[in-house]
């Protein structure tokens, strides 16, 4: 057993774990944050995407012990109280899901996309950057629409916050 300390969705957590514990296992089984899903378990489908120190990673291909000291954001960490994150709201508005299994990974990837590329995302960019996320239901069309709209909404939501900070 080895000790791992992380900040998950802003909360400090420490646990004694087996070194072979994957980050996704730690999130789901130790912390009971079951919003992060295991789909393929072979680093291809992206259902397990979380943010590690602000960057999207596949938590099924990351050892929890290897990211000791890091900050992790999961799908549960996006909304503030009852108010959905603008990207979550966009997925609801544009019906960017059917069964919903891939949705947490899609949304975490979408937010990462905005962090890397800004608020104005064209269809080609979105489709290319969704390379690491597989959806078996939707055919992606509404997911792409949702991400474009969510990115713009994040820009609008972010603007007053930045003004307030200044």
């Amino acid at each position, binding site marked *: 057993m080895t000790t791992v300390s992380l900040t998950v969705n802003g909360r400090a957590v420490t646990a004694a774990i087996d070194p072979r514990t994957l980050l996704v296992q730690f999130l789901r089984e130790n912390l009971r944050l079951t919003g992060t899903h295991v789909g393929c378990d072979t680093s291809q489908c992206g259902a397990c995407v979380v943010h590690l120190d602000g960057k999207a990673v596949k938590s099924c291909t990351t050892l929890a012990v*290897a990211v000791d000291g890091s900050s992790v954001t999961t799908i549960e960490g996006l909304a503030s109280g009852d108010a959905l994150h603008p990207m979550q709201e966009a997925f609801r508005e544009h019906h960017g899901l059917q069964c919903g299994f891939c949705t947490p990974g899609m949304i975490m990837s979408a937010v990462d996309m905005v962090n890397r590329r800004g608020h104005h995302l064209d269809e080609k960019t979105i489709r290319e950057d969704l390379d690491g996320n597989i959806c078996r239901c939707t055919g992606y069309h509404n997911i792409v629409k949702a991400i474009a709209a969510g990115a713009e909404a994040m820009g609008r939501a972010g603007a007053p916050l930045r003004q307030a900070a200044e």
Partner: protein
Amino acid sequence: MYAFTYHKPTSARQAATLLAKKEDAKLLAGGHTLLPTMKQRLAAPSALVDLGACADLKGIAVKGRNVVIGAMTTHAEVAASPEVQAAIPALAYLAGHIGDPHVRHRGTIGGSVANNDPAADYPAALLALGATVVTNKRKLSAEEFFTGLYETALDEGEIVTRVSFPVVSRAGYAKFRNPASRYAMVGVFVAKRGGEVRVAVTGAGEGGVFRWPEAEAALKARFAVKSLDGLKHTADGINGDIHADPEYRAHLIGVMAKQAVAQATGK
């Protein structure tokens, strides 16, 4: 996966010491090949030596006419690096097309070259650009380093510390991706350095990455897409699998080579 002990050294020297001390230990870089392999129980190291905290293995520097990239530098960092984009844009492009965005946030250049997957992207860049692989013990040319399918010249206990790429006048990379894994079915990297032209092919060879001398000669005469007209690679020694047979892959080598030259010449 099977149980292992976990070690996290803070320098390459410490990592080498641990690697020598622990029997059956393996180095962990980005983990995007090793961990899936361990999950499938195809690898069962008794100890993992994680290079993630070795600050001396990270970073990108331009030294004279070379771009030097630390082994633990991620694909995303190489792709986004203004230094790499300015000096060897084709290398930044290649790094930005490995796997998907999440994989690029974890996968590293050192891990990729040490694994020498026959369908990995970096080996083509190293071979075409005439890069030097620096280890904790010595320096090896790309030709000396890549020795076969998943095989390199690395000795037991030897660690890749950085890769040094000479800046070339023109370079381009094109790959035909496997749509599921995003690995190269065929990837071709072309580079022109002074009067020398190199064409390196990944994804296609039964023995891993290789050079295509006929294309190099044709491009040396004139570095243009047209020079490759009518040039066909043989299907002998080319991989065949459920994704593509050897003839199809051989054909793709010609197509990807032309696209790479087009990228290199801006046409």
